[in-house]
């Protein structure tokens, strides 16, 4: 079965009101081209699950796509706070359901493993558990009296991750290997969309089966989008674009500037090529490209 889809067709899988999981970690490996497509089609009322995020959540919030963010962390690291996330949370425009990283991982694993909960010691002694006592229940082991936290399932309607290569059948390779928590998103999702830098022949998967990351039966749609994680990084191929983060943050400080920046550099470009062109084109590509 051919799982190759256009960005448009894949984005149509995400209904308004859906709970989506977005891969990547902070400034690394987020499916940004797909996020931009959601923005362009004006997705609404999404619940966005992102374990550790930066630009992906900030864009979706800026575009008004989001009702609730379920997360451990949303930041621009040393560049500053995620500006739209911060503003919307402070204004009450979005709900923020904060977890720690491992509490969120355990909730996704409970969904993936069809268990009523997955236990962890994460969060014990903090205020995080009190935010959602039904989904992170503090309990005592009946035999030892030890405290643990029972993390209930967090099923995702759609999981979206970015990777290096896929074949038409939906086998996906993260190259050189899976590093961040994307597999927990893939496994907890009813439908999984993977954007990839490039399509690869099925024969290349057979030639190196130890490098296959997601088998075809866990993937529903594959979309080829070169530089699809831009402006976040994709190890080891390209780094995040520090210039974009800085310009974006600067623009949010000036309301007039912001609307121009947002439209010209994020919202308006039709294709991935036009988007990259609007953000420095070849110069940018060459500046973030890394040796492999």
């Amino acid at each position, binding site marked *: 079965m051919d799982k190759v889809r256009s960005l448009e067709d894949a984005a149509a899988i995400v209904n308004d009101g859906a709970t989506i999981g977005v891969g990547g970690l902070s400034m690394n490996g987020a499916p940004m081209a797909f996020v931009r497509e959601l923005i362009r089609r004006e997705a609404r009322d999404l619940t966005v699950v992102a374990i550790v995020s930066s630009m992906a959540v900030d864009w979706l919030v800026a575009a008004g796509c989001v009702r609730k963010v379920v997360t451990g962390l949303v930041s621009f690291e040393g560049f500053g706070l995620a500006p739209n996330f911060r503003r919307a949370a402070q204004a009450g425009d979005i709900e923020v359901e904060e977890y720690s990283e*491992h509490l969120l991982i355990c909730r996704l694993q409970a969904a993936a493993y069809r268990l009523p909960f997955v236990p962890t010691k994460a969060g*014990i002694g*903090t205020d*995080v558990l009190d935010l959602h006592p039904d989904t992170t229940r503090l309990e005592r082991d009946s035999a030892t009296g*030890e405290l643990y936290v029972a993390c209930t399932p967090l099923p995702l309607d759609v999981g979206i991750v970015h990777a290096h290569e896929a074949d038409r059948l939906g086998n996906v390779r993260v190259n050189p290997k899976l*590093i961040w928590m994307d597999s927990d998103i893939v496994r907890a999702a009813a439908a999984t969309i993977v954007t990839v830098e490039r399509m690869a022949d099925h024969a290349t998967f057979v030639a190196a089966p130890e490098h296959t990351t997601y088998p075809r039966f866990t993937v529903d749609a594959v979309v080829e989008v070169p530089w699809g994680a831009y402006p976040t990084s994709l190890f080891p191929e390209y780094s995040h674009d520090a210039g974009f983060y800085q310009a974006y943050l600067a623009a949010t400080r000036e309301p007039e500037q912001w609307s121009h920046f947002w439209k010209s550099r994020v919202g308006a470009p039709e294709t991935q090529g036009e988007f990259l062109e609007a953000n420095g084109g070849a110069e940018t590509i060459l500046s973030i490209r890394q040796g492999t």
Partner: protein
Amino acid sequence: MSIPVPGADCTVDELMVVTLAREFTNDTRAFNGAVSFIPVCAYLLARRTHAPDLVWAASSIAVDADPDRLAESTLSDAIWTGASMLSNSPFDFWAYAQGARYNTFAFRGAQMDRYGNVNNTVIGPYDDPKVRLPGGGGMADLGGMIPNVYLWSTTHNDRTFVEQLDFRSGLGWGDGGDHRRELGFSGGPQLCVTNLCVMDFHPESRAMRLRSVHPGVTAADVQDATGFGVLLPDDGSVPDTALPTETELRILRDEVDPTSMRLREFV
């Protein structure tokens, strides 16, 4: 922004890194999260001086990384050079963290209290925040799981060191005393290194206690800059923080962090 230490050939960032580095040993098995230049410098410095067997997983991923210089993000793969293992987050990292195979972690918060608990979630009420901060990330996980916790701050003032956190994102010694142990965790915060001083924790109450002040800073200065009462050492006298050696400074400046990325924590 580099701040000179009066009467010494070094700056505050260097003093902080060296102080922290001296705490680590060949049994230290550490990793780091975002915006963690001070501890990352300290792990690398310790490994290049007195603790060659120290384990450091860059970005929690790249075990035994040995970068030529740091990068603008401590989660960036630019600091993974020379690693002997690229581990995987859900399968490897969390197994090692839960199992205390990693035993050392350092974090900072927008707010910290006397027991070394930290807040990185909100200033103000959670549901109607004055400032929405990034979130606790792994603090709520690792503050408890990892036995040797180190704290640092480059903004020692009474907005950072507060009587009462607005939100407890990460666990230190909890409510103090035996609280952390009662919750099921071993170890606890060992040290808090700031731009003004070095604090440890009283062995019984687990409250912050002044261990040393940086040259030019007095115990009274520290107290003025702290929103809770800071304990003094039993004998009442507070020494100056020991200065870096020339070797430590040379290695830090020339080998560990030649492009001074650590100054990104002083803005």
